[in-house]
Every structure is written in structure tokens, then in C-alpha cells.
């Protein structure tokens, strides 16, 4: 990851938009004090970062997101593998999964509060539900794409079904699973914050709504900036991890290209 200052760099557009933000707020193009200049936003961000409030909130939000991501991801992979290995289970549970999948998660948060409360249990569950479906779909897709020759070779060498699943299918499916996780990662952050905005007194989401209701626009936008940067960094970190874990797959792709 190297930042270049060439005019073709995407960073130029980002910088341009930030300047536009500052100028539009300074000249009051929107005719409202609820559109504060970027410099005020950054000052508010610095202030609440130094008091330790924002780092603590971000930590809490990230923790809930990670817990939900892990729980939903593990279950998604497991269910995906079972669905693909035993078509009967897919026939039995497939329609249920397909019915639940399109439900917008924020719509079910209020009823979930009734069963799971307002704290971590509810929020982690909501994130896990969000993560589950993309991971499940990708896992099933991946299992379908495992080359028959590979599996046949495993059988020839007398490898049992469980070991075949763990040592042949799972590594071959890994690129698909990771792609599912990457989609889920962005969703997980969004859903964690939404859940925090709706219920309870935790995390970045709650802070954002509090500041909105307190009429403190700079603090509110500071949270938005934090979330944007957080989302960007999470994605970058994930890509780097992905390159390490499945470097062989990227190498394979390059071979095909040549």
C-alpha cells in the first residue's frame, strides 16, 4: 500500500471532496449550521479522542462486530459445507434460509430486543445473522466448484469422507469463503452501528445518535469520519490477510492469465 501523489491517484478525488466539504461549509452553501466545516469536525474528533471516549467506543463496536463476524461466519461455513455435502439437508432447510435471507436486519431489531435484550447478546446475534447468509451462499458455491478430479484422487488414495472434506474440499473452497467474509465485513460494521443506534447505550452508533440529538453536528460528523476510515482500514487489512492465506490461489489466477 503506497500512496502516490500522481494526478491519476484516487486520493486526489478524496482530497478534492474534503476541500469541497470545507469550502461549502465555510461559505454556508447549505444555509444550515448543521453542516460544519471539516476542520471543526476534525477538532471535535481530536478532542473526544484525547479524552479516550471515542477509542473506547470504537473498541466496543469492533469487539461486537468481530464476535458476530466469527459466530456467523463459522456457522455459515459449517452449514454451507453440510448443505453441499448432503443435498437432502439443502432441500429440507433451503427454503427456510431463502425466506429469512432477504429480511432487512434493522427491521427485526425491535422484536429481537424482546428476546435478547439490549446489550451484547442482541447486537452480536444481529451481526452474526447478517454475516451468516453471504458466507453460506459463497461456501455452497465454492463446494460446487471443487474439481471432481481432486476429489477422485483423494478417494483413490483411500482418504475418508471427513478428512476429504477438511483437507481437500475446505482448502479449495477457502477463496470463496473469504470472498463471502469480505462482503460480510462491510455489512457487519454497518449492522453493528445500526443496532447500537436503535437500542442500548453502547458503542459508536449510540454516540452518533446522542450527538445528533444534542445538536452537536461536528461530533456527529466526526463519528461518520471515524466509521469511513474504519471501514476502509478493515477492508485493507482483510485484503492483506487474504493475500497471505490464499497466496496460492492468486498465483493460480496469474498463471491462467498468462
Amino acid at each position, binding site marked *: 500500500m503506497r500512496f502516490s501523489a500522481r494526478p491519476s491517484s484516487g486520493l486526489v478525488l478524496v482530497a478534492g471532496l474534503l476541500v469541497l466539504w470545507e469550502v461549502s461549509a465555510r461559505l454556508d452553501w447549505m*444555509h*444550515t*449550521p*448543521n453542516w460544519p466545516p471539516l476542520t471543526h469536525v476534525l477538532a471535535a474528533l481530536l478532542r473526544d479522542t484525547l479524552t479516550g471516549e471515542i477509542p473506547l467506543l470504537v473498541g466496543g463496536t469492533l469487539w461486537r462486530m468481530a464476535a458476530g463476524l466469527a459466530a456467523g461466519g463459522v456457522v455459515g461455513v459449517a452449514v454451507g459445507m453440510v448443505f453441499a455435502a448432503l443435498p437432502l439437508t439443502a432441500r429440507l432447510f433451503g427454503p427456510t434460509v431463502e425466506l429469512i435471507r432477504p429480511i432487512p436486519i434493522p427491521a427485526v431489531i*425491535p422484536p429481537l*430486543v*424482546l*428476546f435478547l*435484550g*439490549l446489550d451484547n447478546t442482541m447486537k452480536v446475534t444481529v451481526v452474526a445473522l447478517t454475516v451468516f447468509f453471504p458466507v453460506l451462499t459463497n461456501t455452497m458455491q465454492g463446494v460446487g466448484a471443487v474439481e471432481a478430479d481432486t476429489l477422485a484422487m483423494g478417494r483413490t488414495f483411500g482418504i475418508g469422507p471427513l478428512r476429504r472434506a477438511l483437507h481437500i474440499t475446505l482448502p479449495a473452497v477457502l477463496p470463496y469463503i473469504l470472498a463471502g467474509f469480505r462482503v460480510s465485513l462491510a455489512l457487519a460494521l454497518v449492522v453493528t452501528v445500526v443496532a447500537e443506534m*436503535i*437500542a*442500548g*447505550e453502547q458503542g459508536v452508533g*449510540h454516540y452518533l*445518535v*446522542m*450527538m*445528533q*440529538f*444534542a*445538536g*452537536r453536528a461536528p*461530533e456527529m460528523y466526526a463519528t461518520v469520519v471515524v466509521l469511513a476510515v474504519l471501514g476502509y482500514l478493515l477492508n485493507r487489512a482483510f485484503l492483506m490477510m487474504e493475500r497471505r492465506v490464499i497466496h496460492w490461489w492468486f498465483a493460480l489466477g496469474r498463471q491462467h492469465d498468462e
Partner: protein
Amino acid sequence: MTEITRRLALSLAALPLAAPPLLGQSLTKMRVSVIPVLDVAPLHAAIREGYFAAEGLEIDTSTTTGGATGLPGLVAGQFRATFSNAVSILLGVREGLDFRFISGASRGTMTPPDILAVLAKKGSGIRSGKDLEGKRIASNTRNNIVWLRGMAWVEKTGGDWNKVTTVEVPFPQMADALAGGRVDAAILSEPFVAGALATHGDTLERIGWPISETAPGGTNAQYVGMKEDLDANGEIFDRFGRALHRGVDWVNARLTDPALLELIAGFSRVPVERLRQVALPAYPKGVTPAELDELLASMKHFGMTGSYPAPASLIFRSAAV
């Protein structure tokens, strides 16, 4: 095997005997749902001044800005007590939910400034409910106390409330919606009134006081608990009421004191300099059948019909002060 089971059973049986002294030392935890508004200042005062601790209670406030989870969370047992507006509480009671008033929270004052205000754009020619017929008015929610008082004001100032379209706009966005011409008037509560006039004072103006013009001193918000919980643990709520009402005394003794504004700024995060412009509610301790009767009559008049239990039966003894 049987020996182990017997010993286990004996030790389990002995647990309740060991428990009471332990419980006696620790505080009873109570989770209370609140909204970060001026009305809950006494609760925060009572927490900070240690009035709840003196009654053996530890209060854990859960702040929800929308208030959408407050009453459902109470029904679900997430909270022991919830702060909410009187209309939403009574609508819940109408639907068969066993809410009981455990303390008063806020009422309007007898004379302006009110905690609610109707704002309009300067130079728009809108001065009364009559002028709003066929136009759009913003309320944070339909069928709550803000909306009800707003509609009462429309009628009092010569308008037909059925001819005024209500648009749901969250409080923080109301000033911008009004200044941008997306609505023709807005019913705001404090501290958003002060906020709107501070930031949009050149374009917006106040055209009405919905409480003092229609029902001076009218009821606004209360704390409620569930009947079942109150029947079983009434003594806890007696302690809750006593501590909260000491908080009310603390607040009422400081209505013109900067210490109160600092307290409110602490929990609401609204800057103190803005709070200086804010109109405060009256902070009552109790809930009276008369104020609920007045409200129910108004609710039925503005379309929230149905059968409601007698108000006196909804008031728990801690609110009968």
C-alpha cells in the same frame, strides 16, 4: 454417587440461607429506560447525589433517543421502569398492557415559555392553526404528546386539525426541514426549540405555545412500571419513588442555578451555552387522576378513541403524592 447427589442437594438447599446477608450488603440493581431530555434531570440528580444508593438501589440508565424501545423493553422485562410520554403510555394501557404510573416526571408550566413550541418560517404569513389548513406540520411522531398538544393548538387557533397534514420528522432535522420549506410549521420540544432559534433565528420564529395556550400546566411525561412487578415488589418501587422525589426537590431548588444546567449538559451532551436559552418544564412528583382525565378527553377528541381504565386505577402508591 448417591452420596455426592445428597451432599449437592444439601449444599443447594443451604444456598438461600447463605444468600440473604449477602444481598443485604449489595444494592438492588434497577434498569431504567430514559430519553436524554430535560425531563429526566431529577433522576440523574438523584443518581449523582447518591439518593438511590441511600435507598439500597443502583440505577442503570439505558438511554434511547428514539424512545421506541422504552415501553416494549419494559413489557419484555428489560427494564424495571421506563420514562415515557403520557399519550404513549395510555395508548399502551388501552391495548391491554399493564403499565402503572410510579412517578410523575414533567408537566407544562402555567405560563410561557413552554417546553413545546410551534415554529414557522418568518414572512410565510403562517400565524395560526387556521393558516395551516391544507399545509404540512412536522411532528416527531404521530399520536404522542407532542402531536396531541400541537393539534390542540391548531384547533385553539381556529384551524381544523383534520385539514392539517402531519409529517413525521425527527427533532434534530426539524429546523432544517422548516427552513428548507419542506414543511410549513413544526412542533418542537426543548432543547430543540432553543437549538432551532439559536441556529436558524434569522429565518424561523415561534408562533405558538401548545401547552400553555391549550392546557396550562398540562401533563407531559411520567415513569411507569409493570403491574405484576409492582404487585410483587412494591417495596422496591417505594424506595425508587422516595429517591427520585428527593432528586425532584434537588432540581426544583436549583431552577435558576447553573448547577442544574451543568447536570443536564452532562447527561444530554447539549452544550451549556445552548441550555441557557432553554425553557424548563415543571417537575412534579406525583400523577393525579385529574391530569390524566384532561389528557384522555383530549386524546379521544383527537382520534385516539377506545376504552381506557379509570385513571385512578393506573396510579401506583409511589406516584400518589
